[in-house]
């Protein structure tokens, strides 16, 4: 039977061949990782047309793969160069025996002559020897005739490499070049790349006209690049191009990248033209799939807002999809909050939009990985999925398996009382998430000046309370708080209930000034908040006011200069042509110093990072 190297070269699918490494050589690739070229032997022949895929570089660097070790190739592909030579790329291998365990070259292998190509060594042609497994430490199978001297330029697979030929379906030979070599001065090129991100179709309409586009991010072994299809090409390619699949992309325009819109590391980006062709590629295991760099959810607390991060977590719970109207263009958009938890025990809320929100299925608590989510400071820290983000449910990756294993089998996983960094509670009175601001931020961010009220929480110190008119006489009915009119005959009339009563109840409407390190704010506190601040209930205060002025004053003096956590609602209110921001305290609580400290520490660290 033919030699192993020959069989591999000729494209036969040998399953898991076992070969010995005779030599390894590093090849410089400019500014990329080094590529290692390996001289392999099956005991009879050597062949040097083996290249190690870069993901296996560590094997050489850690010296597990070195001259004389024996390894089993689990996955490989054969690339043909334009001059007809072939190269075997080793994608995955196991080192069966390390070099020191083997001790020497097995057999006396001679270089294999492929029979075509420039240099032939003078070796007799096909001499089919029976494949006698050499019974030594490893099982090297296959024997065969001699091989050609494989002559390769030193930067064979570097960045500026000689392109390799690939037969595209349809028979025409196209030159496949690495993404890293694309530049605007080359018009005819083909790349073989995986789609690691696919955006939604976006339409625009402005004075210059209207149109639509969608963008993708493409990755191959040499790098990544962004590609955009407009109008007709958008229509043509959007249904064809699928996330995570590999295609041959031929001919498009290259122009300098607009780094504003993307984090992709490439100086250029592709625009599809009407000459562009996109053809599915089957032989694609060698291309890296979507690369994630996950940040642990607890680390998000220290991540500056607006950063783009990758996260992975178990979807512990999720909310229903809701539709909200975008004020800017009156469009309705779907939105869904999902809550992700990881092994740090922290929970973060991620907001999905559009189709992703609608189609999300969180049943059975899937693992959700998000690439390129934006960190916001809403409720502390939460994530927003952008049109440029990628969301993968139950990804086929080691981190996902680890997470699922931890969640299901590690007793910690399900019982862990996760602390949410997005501060989602089971429904505070205002129904909104906690959104910590300093008074300065509240003012500088113009909270309350939009159409709707804004809510935020802050830590503030009371510096003044207005004693006068701090309470009013209200309707004594249970659910009515309307101010009653004193009929001066011992009766009090409530317009809302349309009744007269012989009594009333005192209700608080206390105006306080609260301050923090930079700003102050007048806040109106109603019954519960006011009673909390003054430490007395309204009825008792009403009595004090009538009967014991001094005691009444003392209550206010004691309430001054205390620090609390305030939940505040701000809204622009117009009163007789005058618009003013009105702030109301919805809730007043003692300061939780531990949480406050943690927030401060995180804030200090964030600001320090920003320099």
């Amino acid at each position: 039977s033919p030699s192993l190297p020959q069989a591999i070269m000729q494209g036969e699918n040998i399953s898991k061949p076992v070969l010995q490494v005779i030599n390894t050589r590093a090849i410089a690739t400019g500014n990329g990782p080094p590529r290692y070229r390996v001289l392999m032997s099956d005991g009879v022949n050597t062949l040097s047309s083996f290249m190690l895929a870069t993901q296996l570089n560590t094997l050489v660097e850690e010296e597990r793969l070195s001259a004389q070790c024996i390894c089993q190739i689990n996955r490989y592909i054969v690339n043909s160069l334009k001059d007809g030579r072939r190269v075997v790329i080793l994608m995955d291998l196991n080192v069966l025996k390390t070099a020191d365990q083997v001790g020497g070259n097995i057999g006396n292998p001679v270089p294999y002559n492929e029979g075509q190509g420039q240099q032939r060594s003078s070796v007799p042609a096909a001499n089919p020897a029976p494949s006698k497994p050499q019974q030594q430490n490893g099982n090297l199978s296959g024997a065969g005739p001699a091989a050609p001297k494989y002559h390769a330029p030193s930067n064979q697979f570097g960045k500026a490499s000689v392109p390799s030929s690939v037969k595209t379906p349809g028979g025409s030979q196209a030159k496949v070049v690495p993404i890293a070599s694309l530049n605007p001065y080359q018009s005819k090129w083909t790349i073989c790349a995986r789609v690691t991100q696919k955006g939604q179709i976006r339409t625009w309409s402005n004075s210059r006209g209207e149109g639509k586009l969608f963008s993708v991010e493409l990755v191959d072994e040499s790098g990544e690049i962004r590609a955009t299809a407009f109008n007709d090409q958008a229509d043509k390619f959007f249904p064809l191009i699928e996330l995570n699949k590999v295609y041959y992309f031929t001919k498009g325009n290259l122009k300098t990248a607009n780094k504003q819109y993307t984090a992709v590391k490439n100086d250029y980006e592709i625009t599809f033209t009407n000459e562009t062709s996109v053809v599915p590629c089957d032989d694609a295991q060698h291309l890296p799939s979507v690369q994630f760099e996950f940040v642990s959810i607890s680390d998000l607390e220290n991540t500056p807002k607006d950063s783009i991060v990758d996260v992975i977590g178990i979807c512990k719970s999720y909310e229903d999809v809701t539709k909200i109207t975008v004020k800017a263009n009156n469009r309705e958009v779907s939105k869904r909050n999902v809550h992700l938890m990881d092994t740090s025990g922290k929970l973060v809320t991620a907001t999905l939009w559009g189709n992703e929100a609608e189609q999300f299925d969180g049943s059975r608590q899937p693992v959700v990985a998000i690439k390129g989510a934006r960190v916001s400071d809403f409720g502390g820290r939460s994530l927003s999925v952008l049109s440029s983000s990628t969301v993968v449910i139950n990804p086929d990756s080691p981190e996902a398996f680890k997470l699922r294993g931890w969640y299901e089998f590690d007793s910690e996983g399900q019982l862990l009382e996760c602390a949410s960094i997005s501060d989602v509670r089971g429904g505070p009175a205002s129904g909104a998430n906690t959104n910590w601001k300093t008074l300065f931020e509240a003012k500088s961010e113009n909270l309350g000046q939009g159409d709707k009220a804004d809510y935020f929480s802050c830590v503030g110190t009371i510096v003044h309370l207005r004693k006068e008119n701090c309470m009013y006489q209200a309707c004594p009915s249970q659910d009515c708080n309307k101010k009653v009119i004193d009929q001066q005959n011992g009766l009090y009339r409530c317009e809302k209930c349309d009744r007269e009563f012989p009594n009333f109840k005192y209700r608080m409407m206390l105006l306080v000034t609260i301050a923090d390190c930079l700003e102050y704010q007048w806040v109106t506190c109603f019954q519960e908040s006011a009673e909390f601040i003054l430490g007395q209930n309204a009825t008792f205060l009403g009595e004090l006011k009538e009967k014991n002025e001094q005691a009444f004053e003392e209550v206010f003096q004691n309430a001054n200069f205390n620090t609390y956590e305030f939940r505040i609602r701000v809204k622009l209110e117009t009163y007789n042509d005058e618009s003013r921001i009105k702030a109301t305290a919805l809730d007043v609580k003692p300061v939780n110093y531990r949480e406050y400290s943690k927030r401060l520490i995180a804030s200090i660290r964030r600001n320090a990072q920003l320099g």
Partner: protein
Amino acid sequence: MGDVHELPRPRIAIFFLAQYIGQPVCFVGRVEKIHPTGKLFVLSDGEGKHTTVELSEPLDEEISGVLEVVGRVTNQATIMCMSYVQFREDKSPFDLELYNEALKIIHEFPEYFPFG
């Protein structure tokens, strides 16, 4: 060594002990062990590291929980205690780890947290 109370005494964690030899400091830690003579006890800080605190007079009461010690750092990087205060943890527990985090910030930004 009564002057210790007159001088500024920075708050430190065990990590900083070596840098403050001979100087007055304020150390907060949890009681781990008390020597039978009552003149020595071991405190741990928020990172779990331990240090020894010495007294000139033996303790005249039981101590436990979190303690704040004011004293001077000896050449052996222990603390010669001049006075101490026990933190009452019945109302709320003292988060020693958070205290350590705060200490790191104080020492990292001395321009905002000057010591005296």
